[in-house]
Each structure stands twice: as C-alpha cells, then as structure tokens.
C-alpha cells in the first residue's frame, strides 16, 4: 500500500517538474523532500542559493499553482514554513490534535473537561469508553473525539487532582466493568466540586511569597515590613 503511494507520488512529481521552470523545480523539490516536516523559508533560501527577487517570485508561483502551502509551526509562529500540498503537517509542526492554527485549543479542552467532570459526578465510576459513549449520545460535539483524545483529557483531570484513576474489582461500584479495567472516579461527589486542599504553608503569606528568597529578619524585605503580611492581617 505504502509502496503504491510512493510510486504514484513519484509519477506525479515527474509530471509536475516537467511543467516548471528551472528555479521552480529546484525549490519545489527541496520543499517536497522535507515531506510532512516542511521547510523554513530562510533555510530554503540558503540551501537553494537563488537570488532574493527570483526566490520570492518562485514561491508565489508555486503557491498559485497549488503545489506548495504555508503552514503554522507551533514552536515558532513567526517563521514561514512551506510544505508540498500533498502532505499533512506532522505533529511536531501542528502541536498535535489539541492545536488549531498553532495555538492550543484551550476552550475546547476546558469544555471536554467540564463535560467529563459533570458525567463522572453522576456516575460512581466510568471507563473511557463509557464517557465517550455519553459524549456521542449527547450529541454535544460535531467534532470527532477519539478514544485516545478523551483518555488524555481524563488523565489531565487526574493530574488536576479532580478525578482519581482506579482499577475495577468487578464488585460493588465496579459491577458491570470487567475486573482490571482502568476506571475514573470523581474525588468528591458533592456537586462535582472538590474542596481545595490547602496545606499549612500555602495558607500563610510566606508559602506563596515570590520574594521569600530575599526575605531576612532585618533585611529590606522582612516579616516586620512585609506588605503581604499587612494585607493578611488587615482586619
């Protein structure tokens, strides 16, 4: 299958390069050789050693012929990256499924998280498949959410300490889930909102102080003249 694709691509490339000028062919072949990683215009110019004015024209012409496209690189959005139109940008370039136009789609992620939390707070425990099934049945999304995507969402909820990962025993709360399967359980069932646990340090000014390393008993920053303390003790 892959071999077939390759042959097809090679044939197409030959046909394309016949219709191109010499400079266009050099630039196009260089871009194509980078496949789904694309190439930065600066690097392209350096490697092809074509004079600036011609180089710009060549790029415009190739774009007009729809042989190449510009893609956004998540790492450096300012840089122009070119890629042959037949390739889809790699994960390294786009940042993965959660990125659109080189930006992390936080809104989409948060919506998924909230919906997952809502569902988990109504259930005792749930597997990824169960949450996915709920999403599909609710019809909340027009976008396809894969099993893997959802697992990533649930794992971040575990890291946020809002959900815990447990293994099914097959009994009690886990009835209906085969033993050994990974399940997710909300940490607090009251309204799905967990009481924030605040440690001893985190509840006093020094625990959250960005200047603690500059603070000394008789220094410029000291507990005696500390503005954070003043605010804290302002009754």
């Amino acid at each position, binding site marked *: 299958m892959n071999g077939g694709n390759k042959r097809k691509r090679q044939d197409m490339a030959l046909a394309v390069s016949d219709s191109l000028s010499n400079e266009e062919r050099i630039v196009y072949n260089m871009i194509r050789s980078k496949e789904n990683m694309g190439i930065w215009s600066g690097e392209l110019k350096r490697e092809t050693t074509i004079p600036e004015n011609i180089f710009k024209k060549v790029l415009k012409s190739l774009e007009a012929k729809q042989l190449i496209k510009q893609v956004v690189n*998540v*790492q450096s959005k300012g840089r122009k990256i070119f890629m042959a139109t037949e390739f889809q940008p790699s994960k390294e370039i786009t*940042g*993965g499924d*959660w990125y659109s136009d080189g*930006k*992390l789609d*936080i809104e989409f*992620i948060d919506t998924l998280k909230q919906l997952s939390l809502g569902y988990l707070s109504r259930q005792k425990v749930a597997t990824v498949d169960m949450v996915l099934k709920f999403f599909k049945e609710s019809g909340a999304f027009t976008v396809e959410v894969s099993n893997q995507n959802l697992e*990533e*969402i649930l*794992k*971040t909820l575990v*890291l*946020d*300490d809002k959900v815990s990962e447990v293994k099914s025993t097959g009994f009690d709360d886990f009835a209906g889930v085969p033993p050994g399967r990974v399940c997710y359980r909300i940490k607090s069932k009251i309204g799905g909102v967990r009481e924030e*646990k*605040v*440690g*001893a*340090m*985190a*509840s*006093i000014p*020094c*625990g*959250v*102080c*960005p200047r*603690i*390393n500059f*603070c000394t*008993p008789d220094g410029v920053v*000291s*507990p*005696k003249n*500390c503005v954070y*303390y003043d605010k*804290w*003790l302002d*009754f």
Partner: protein
Amino acid sequence: MVSEYGLKLAVHLITTHFGNIVANVCENLLRKGPLTLDQLIRFTELKREQVKNSLLVLVQHNCVQPFQNQQQQDAAKTEYMALFDNILHRPRFPKFLDIVSRKLDDECVELLDGLLRNGRLTLQQMADRASEGKENPVAIDVVRESLCKLLAGQYVERCPAPEPVLFPVVEETTTRKRGAKSAKIFQPPLTIEQRVLEVSVAGESIRFSLTADTGFNADRETNSDDCPMTSVEDAVKEELTPWRANFEEFMRHLRHKALIENVRTRLDEGAATILSAILDATRTAERKVKVQNSVPLSLEAIFTEVVKSENGRTMTIDRVKASLVQLGCPSRVPDDSYTIDLKNIIELARNDEVESIVLKRYGPYAYRMFRLLSKANCFLETDKIAESTLVEKKEAPRLLHGLWKDNYLHMEKLQVMASKQSRFVMWKVNKPQLWDYVLDEMYHAALNLNLRLGLEQEKDVELLSVPLDKINESKSLQKKFERRRRVRLLLGSSLMKLDDALMLFHDF
C-alpha cells in the same frame, strides 16, 4: 545537618525563652557542633561564668547534652552538644499537655506541666511544686502515684546519663561478602549526636522505672498499693533522681495521629479505624519514632483490637480485610500477618503539602506539570510534559523554568548529535532534595510568623493596661482591641498548623 533557617528558628526560640546570652552559647553549639567549655568561651567572647550558667540552663531544659569525648588520643574533655530537635519541641508543649489531658487525670497534667516548664525535676521538687499556694502540702505519695501513671504511659522518663562517654567507633571486621546483598543493607554511619543520645539513654527497663535499683518497676508500683520502699537509702535515691518529659513518646503519638488523619481524608473512616487499632496494639513494640512499617499483626489480633474501639464495633472481619487491602497491605503468606507501609503514608502527605504550595505559588498549569513529574518519578522532556498535561507548548518551558529556578524541579540539558544537532531539556522532581528545601522554607516561614507575632504583641501593648469598661466606651479602642485579638489568633493558629507540617517533614 540542620538547615540555615532551622538553625535561625532554634536560636530565635532560645532567645525569646532564655535571652541573648544563652542564645549566643546555643547558636555557637548549633553552628559549630560539640564544643568544650574553653572553646565556647573563646567563640562567644563571654565570661566563663556566663557560659557556665548558660550551659546549666540549656542542660536543665534538655537543649544541650554534655558528654566525654574519648575519640581523640589526648585526654578526654567534656564537650557540649546542642539538641536541635529538643529546642524545636519547645513550642509544642501545649500539644504534649493536650495528649496527656486526654489520657490521664488533672494531677498528671499538672505534673507534666511542671516538668515541661522546668525541664527536669526530682520527686521532691515535684511535690514542692504541687504544694505551692496550697494550705496543706501535697503528700509525696500522691505525687509519686501521678509520676507512676506518667511513667507507665512512657510520657516521662529518667533523665539521661549526665556525662556519657563516647568511645571511638570500632571498625566492623565481619567477613561479609561484597555485593548486591551487602549494599542493600548499608546504613549510613550514626552522627555524633545520634551516638551520644544512644549511649546517654538508659535501658528500657530503667528508663521508665521509678525505682529501678530496687528491682520493681512502674507497673508494679501502680498495681500494688502495699509496696513499701525497702530501705531509707532507696528512698533518698528515688528523691534525688531527676525526671523529664519523654519527647519521643509524644512525637510517636503525634506521628500516629497524623498517619490516621491522613488515611481518613485519603481513604475513609473504616481504614482510619483499622490503622488506629493496629498502631494502638503495637505502640509499645515500636523501637523508634520513624518506623517504616507497622509491626506485623495477625488478622485475628487486628480484629480483636478493632472491635474494642467505638467506630470498629460494627465491623465484620470482611470489612476489616477490605480496609487492609485499601491500606495497601497484602497478607504475608507464611504467618498471615499484616503490616502497613507507614513511610508511604507520610510521603503522600508530604507530596500533598508540596503540591499545595506549587498550586498557590505557580498556578494550575505548573501544578499539573509538577504532579505529572512527581508521579512519574523520572526525567521527562519539555515537549512530552506539555503534551501529557495539555499545556501550551510555548508556555510550558517558562513555567518549568520558574519551578526550577526556585529549586522545585531538577533540570538537565541533553545534547544529541544525530542527523542534526538537537538539544533537549529534561525535568525531574528530586523528592528527598526537594523535601529538604521545602523544610528549610518552612523553618523560614515559622521564624517569620514568630517574628511578626512578636511585633504584633509589642504593638498596642498599652491596650492591655486599659481597663475593660474604658475599652467598651470607645469605638476606636474596641476596634484596636478586636484587631489585636484576631491577629494573635490567626498568627497563633497558623504557627500551630505550620508546626504540624514541620514535624511531617522533619520528625515523621
């Protein structure tokens, strides 16, 4: 080795309790390690008499232990060693008194209070203290009875040897094979402090025995009323023996409490009841405070102990078994005994404390990445971290760098020379190192709370001399008075809470 702010906090406590001169002597001992009297005089630049008196105060309050150091070739000299832990226990005295007030009667609490205030007391001194301000002096037998109760609970102990001798360490000459097995059981050598404490403490039977020399112990004393002293000589000896509070027992008690509370919030009431029963049943078998695992106990013994408690009365054996599984202890097959990994519970509690600081100080994204690294317990690459936590790839390095700069993360750069040169940045949570760092920050915070409390108490001090009805008349005075009360309450309760965290990282 005590960290810088631990040391500063200890010196601050000694300064507020005993003044600058005693604190000067103590600071030198803490910073420089054990010193002779002459060395102390040189370093402190105080008069011999002042140093001597300071040492007497510190020894009396169990903050310094003298010992004969025979490790060097030249003639043995008495050296003095500061006991950092005991200094830090001083603000915990109300907690210790609270423990005893829940277990024993008021007389015992009164007696312990005397010991904590005075450091060390003989039976006669205790009786004198009990009689103060009373019409009829309290009989020594009454005091002895209270002391026996405290001894039976190991809340009080015989004072350690006044000047134990520290001999040079004899190299072990066993012919144990080198290899993985011997490496596994390697224990770091004891510090001088640990060795001195080890030789100074009397054996278990003498330590908690009121009349060890005559051969009957505290238990028998409390059980039989008609057990008279055998001779006048013994009675004199008994009256001259100094006693002190046994901090070790109080720390064990507080550690158990912290363990149980932690299990209660992490798991449930049932698991907490089981753990509490196990710890109660094996308390006397624990040889030190920081035991790694609970003492093995059979299911039957656990069940017997559980049903004794109020919460455990309704539990079935299956419920007990289920809770034991929750607590992560598979039964040890050969003898069907259960043991719980206590160190793990403490570590989870420490993680919670550190994570809570990260959340508040660095925000939810940093918190998520920190938790990923903490759970992974290995090096992870920046992009991998951003992907696993769904944090913007450009934002992740900045947040990770912030955590690294403040010593919360360990970072290493990796240069890979393959088809093209690439540089990776790897991150890790180095727990033991981080815990030491956080502990030092906590000492710093405790010192700051103490300093601010001192400042707030000095402020508006004239309010205390204003009569109450005058305060009630003036609104501004009332407001000031109320503020003073609330500030003291907040600072005091924060200190108590922070002290629990200090114990979690240092003593447990």
